[in-house]
């Protein structure tokens, strides 16, 4: 079963987390690279096509992730994590979601600024909605790049925090998101039939 437990992540949350991570970490350099290409570069047309298509799919993955959070709430931070760290982590996670959506929205507003839809891998089209605002593509483009840079900085902070938990605090924060079962005897993975182990580990 893919549901999260009170002390561990289910595989659906883990898969969606890393899917979004891979998506963001490929879309950012792809976006920078594709805008630097010369006109006769063989990737001049395909790179933006892939960037936009992946962006739309990432949006779907992110929506699925949020929906899944509602269905199956994520586990609380480890008991060893301080109150301050919980608050900071919580704010960063919310900000990451907000920035992801803002970057996607601004990207969408560039490509659909003249009413053209976005082609997603010759698979389906995402229609334009808001278009024709004065200099929409320029403002949206500025927002897209700026917000993407802020997002990547925050992603780096998020990753460094995970590494800090792993190497300095030597706790299971990162291992939990990698789906590694706890080394202790009462891990959720080893007793899947118990619906809730709340209190056992604390």
């Amino acid at each position: 079963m893919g549901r999260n437990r009170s002390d561990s992540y289910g595989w659906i949350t883990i898969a969606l987390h890393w899917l979004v991570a891979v998506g963001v970490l490929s879309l950012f350099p792809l976006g920078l690279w594709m805008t630097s290409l010369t006109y006769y570069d063989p990737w001049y047309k395909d790179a933006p096509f892939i960037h936009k298509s992946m962006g739309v799919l990432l949006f779907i993955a992110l929506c699925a992730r949020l929906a899944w959070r509602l269905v199956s709430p994520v586990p609380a931070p480890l008991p060893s994590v301080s109150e301050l760290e919980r608050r900071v982590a919580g704010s960063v996670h919310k900000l990451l979601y907000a920035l992801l959506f803002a970057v996607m929205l601004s990207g969408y507003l560039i490509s659909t600024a003249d009413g053209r839809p976005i082609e997603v891998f010759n698979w389906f089209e995402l229609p334009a909605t808001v278009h024709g605002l004065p200099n929409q593509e320029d403002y949206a483009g500025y927002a897209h790049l700026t917000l993407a840079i802020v997002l990547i900085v925050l992603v780096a902070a998020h990753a460094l925090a995970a590494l800090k938990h792993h190497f300095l605090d030597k706790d299971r924060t990162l291992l939990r998101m990698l789906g590694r079962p706890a080394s202790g005897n009462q891990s959720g993975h080893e007793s899947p039939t118990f619906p809730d182990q709340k209190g056992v580990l604390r």
Partner: protein
Amino acid sequence: MKMSLRNTVLAVMLVGATSVAWADDYVIDTQGAHAFIQFKIAHLGYSWLLGRFNDFEGQFSYDEKNPDASTVKVTINTASLDTNHAERDKHLRSADFFDVSKYPTATFESTGFKENADGTAVLSGNLTLRGVTKAIDIDVKHVGHGEDPWGGYRRGFEGKTKIALKDFGIPYDLGPAASEAELFLSVEGIRK
């Protein structure tokens, strides 16, 4: 010899008054959009890409008795370029092409006008684009003039010229077929 301030003012007023009396001044009808600044550039050498500037203003003076004294001045809002594709327009506004945040306007100011007997003419002037000012010649055809149905008087010209992108410091390479852009100008003035 020193001229008194009063005499200087008088002289300036006199010169101003006579030039007004000689030539008719026209404001280019951008209000009613009877004026167009279009550009045309080869796409890979296989077809044409057309675009235009939607926002510009200008005026000209024209005297039938002395056409060679005609003058034109046009100011273009470079950010208003329009090739019917938002992403391309965004790219064209960037530093790769027009760099509109740094160079928000382009101007053309005439320096000479030579009219031929057949109604064609050559308009010389300075085009300032992307911060570079260069003298260009525009082949002009006098299209027509006369009263409009609403109580005004109009006069129109068309013009054609070619500019090389690199002459104005446009750094982006669109390929060997697209080193030059053609400009087509259609200008209707309403007499002041």
